[in-house]
């Protein structure tokens, strides 16, 4: 598949894997050729996980002071591989609690694309009170994000998407728990379960 997919091409790709204007609870959804194609794509990805596993091992070796966690849930309905790299610094925040910071990378199984974002989560008394996701560079996480991204690019033949493309609306598709009318490309090409 070409690495230079335009937004219209990506929208078309999504429509090849999700039936339009049909909710997953409605008759015909699971039997649709699009959904069956999506299942085959997920099964195919799960059978060829070597490159991904190699990347996670490299990240673990290169970033020994970080917690590197493989959170890929393709078996559970995601369309991406996912790694979370937790930063070693966990600063205390005013008002109580800590801020847990991670660099997250999602790699699509539908196209040679990835997303990198920073996840800043407020943890108070073992409860996640607040989550902030930042898709642009962030000074707090950039040193780690750069290393992670460099490895992702060197280990996998993938490229990032522009923010405009990532958040392009896909109004006639339901992607997992994101309802018709609310989905964006990132929800369908990767996952709507981002944290």
């Amino acid at each position: 598949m070409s690495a230079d997919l335009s937004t219209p091409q990506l929208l078309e790709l999504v429509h090849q894997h999700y039936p339009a204007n049909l909710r997953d609870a409605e008759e015909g959804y699971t039997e649709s050729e699009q959904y069956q194609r999506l299942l085959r794509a997920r099964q195919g990805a799960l059978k060829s996980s070597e490159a991904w596993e190699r990347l996670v091992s490299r990240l673990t070796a290169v970033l020994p002071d970080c917690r590197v966690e493989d959170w890929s849930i393709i078996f559970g309905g995601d369309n991406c591989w996912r790694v979370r790299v937790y930063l070693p610094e966990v600063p205390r925040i005013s008002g109580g609690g800590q801020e847990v910071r991670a660099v997250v990378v999602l790699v699509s199984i539908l196209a040679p694309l990835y997303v990198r974002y920073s996840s800043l989560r407020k943890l108070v008394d073992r409860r996640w009170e607040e989550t902030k996701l930042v898709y642009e560079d962030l000074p707090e996480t950039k040193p780690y994000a750069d290393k992670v991204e460099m490895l992702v690019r060197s280990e996998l033949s993938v490229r990032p998407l522009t923010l405009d493309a990532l958040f392009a609306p896909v109004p006639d598709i339901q992607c997992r728990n994101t309802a018709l009318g609310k989905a964006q490309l990132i929800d369908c090409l990767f996952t709507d379960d981002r944290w």
Partner: protein
Amino acid sequence: MTRYVVVLTLLCLTACVSFIGGPSGISPSQFQFQPMVQRRGPGPGGWKSARVTIQLLHVTDQGIHKNVWCPVEVQVPEINYLGVITDQFAQEEAARASDIASERTMKQEALLSAEMCEHFRKEMEREIGKVIEGARVIKAL
């Protein structure tokens, strides 16, 4: 007068079906988690899941106003950032999140049945995720 009743229908992995629940909420024991994906190596990993069907009933003086069935699968990691997720903890949190999600969903007046289930899953996932990082709620197929 309007009443919202949340009933949990437990879909066993075998053929049995039972109806539990009511105004007092859903019992944690109805979420029977089964191993789903084995943990490999050190660190976080491993998944377990529980499949249930939530029945949302909106009862008015005139009778049942709405009766919606939502088959859901709750997926929980065995281990996450905060440590081991025991079955008991997962059950308690699933029940708590389910009750909150049900209440929020039933307050949405104008939703179609399918939209109510989507709303329920989203709300339940949001709630359980506040305590069990990474937990998910999807449509059970």
